[in-house]
């Protein structure tokens, strides 16, 4: 009894952490173990099937055209959106690093898009993309051009979804890079100018090297985030036309929650988790260093 009291006194600090610890284990550790476990089963809760099948789910997964297309599309989406967002974000940050009249007023407006819920954004863009009634095609027709099948063309649909993501999340890359730009001391530029350096060379030899960490951070964060792409696909295209906008998240959703083929969906989830974890680890290491 006395030992117990001494132990509890010594570890009273643990009480602060305990509720969070329990909830995190319950909500994340246990489900991850379970999803790993289920990936070796044929599991359908509606038809009450639960049978061990070994690696069959994984074998099926990697011969499933939908999954493979999803993998490819997710990769294309993630790379396309991330690179464009960081590039545009950099341009925008350079623009807003200049002191001009109205800057204070415009800055919050630029950040606006990332405040809206993705569903609201999808509603807007879907109406603008509409083949017959959309404003984009109306503008094209007015200019004497051919209307574009934004969301219903096999080749274009994925990039139309990318464009929506660019609109929504470029502000995020912008914020990170603007913070980076503003942390560069002005004297550096002054000194370089005295030495005769101008515009492009200042950018290449001072701005870019000093901004490296921030660019890296923006690339990491956006690629981790875009890799999860689900809601835009759900609301804009439903994975179609055909398999043109199929993604991994959407595949897991359809297999697991429409067909209740939860074993296969779990296998896909495990693959996805591992893929994201690789990139996450790079990010976490970076954050860890920053935290000291």
């Amino acid at each position: 009894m006395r030992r117990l009291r001494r132990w509890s006194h010594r570890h009273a600090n643990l009480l602060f952490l305990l509720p969070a610890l329990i909830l995190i284990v319950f909500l994340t550790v246990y489900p991850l173990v379970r999803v790993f476990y289920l990936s070796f089963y044929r599991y359908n809760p509606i038809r009450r099937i639960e049978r061990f099948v070994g690696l069959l789910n994984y074998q099926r997964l990697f011969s499933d055209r939908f999954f493979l297309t999803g993998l490819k599309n997710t990769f294309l989406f993630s790379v396309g959106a991330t690179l464009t967002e960081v590039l545009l974000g950099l341009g925008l940050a350079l623009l807003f690093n200049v002191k001009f009249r109205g800057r204070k007023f415009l800055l919050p407006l630029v950040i606006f898009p990332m405040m809206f819920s993705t569903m609201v954004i999808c509603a807007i863009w879907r109406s603008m993309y509409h083949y017959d009634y959309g404003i984009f095609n109306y503008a094209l027709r007015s200019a004497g051009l051919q209307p574009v099948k934004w969301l219903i063309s096999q080749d274009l649909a994925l990039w139309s979804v990318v464009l929506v993501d660019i609109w929504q999340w470029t502000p995020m890359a912008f914020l990170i890079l603007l913070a980076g730009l503003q942390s560069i001391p002005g004297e550096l530029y002054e000194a370089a100018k005295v030495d005769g350096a101008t515009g492009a060379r200042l950018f290449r030899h001072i701005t870019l090297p000093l901004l490296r960490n921030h660019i890296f951070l923006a690339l990491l964060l956006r690629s981790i985030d875009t890799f999860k792409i689900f809601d835009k696909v759900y609301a804009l295209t439903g994975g179609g036309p055909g398999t043109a906008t199929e993604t991994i998240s959407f595949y897991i959703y359809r297999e697991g929650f429409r067909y209740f083929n939860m074993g296969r969906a779990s296998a896909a989830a495990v693959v996805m988790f591992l893929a994201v974890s690789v990139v996450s680890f790079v990010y976490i290491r970076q954050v860890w260093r920053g935290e000291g």
Partner: protein
Amino acid sequence: MSLWRTTAIVKRGLFWVVLALVMVFVLFPIYWMLTTSFKEPLEYATRTPSWFPHRITLEHYREIWKEGAYRYFINTVLVSVGATLLSLGIAFPAAYGLARFRFPAKLDLIFLLWVLLVRMAPPVVLAIPLYTTLQGMGLLNKLTGLVIAYQVYTLPYSIWMLLRFVRDVPIEVEEAAAIDGASKGRTLVSIVLPLVGPGLVATAIFAVIMTWNEFIYALLFLRRPEVFTLPIHISHFITEYEVLWGPLMAIGITSSLPILILSGYVQKHLLRGFAISFK
């Protein structure tokens, strides 16, 4: 001299042109939502939509109110405030503990690493086991169930945010309290809490925004219309009615207003809030 002057003027002009183009790209979709919500169907469900509403109507707003959209509003408020309060209540002591104490077996480090990893993980990965767990507890199709599921997002997020705010509190203040004989629990509530107050509010606002806009768990765990949140209602609207854009935009505007107002309060924390929050 005059050549130098001309280039300066051209540069300046170019700057404003680029800035204007950027602002049009950023603001046009929002403008389009706003104006469509006030247009009559004749002006938007047509091959020649109008750039400005010729006649302004409030009909769409009246319609969504009459059809009971406020129910989804109430559901969304309940879920996002509920999830936020629960998270803060649990995350605040945890963040304090992590900032101030050492734990046996590097528990604190492992915990923090895990929290970060969870923060990055795709929510859909956890969806299947969470679904069966909620089903087992009878919490499917219940707002309470969603509040619990949302801890996957808000708890790691709040812990990480609050950790930084707590670390900013000078430890001397607490040492003084300890000398005066205050217990750890008391110090937490009456010394640390007021000092982290602003940080707590900022964290709460971000958590509300995050859960207000959340889609995938709401879609998977709420399948009866009476418990729908706003994003789910909107998604049904989008996919079921092809061009009913007037009411759709009206509900889009109404559902975004609270978030836009709240975000005004956290402008200076935006970077801190989003660089680790990205849903």
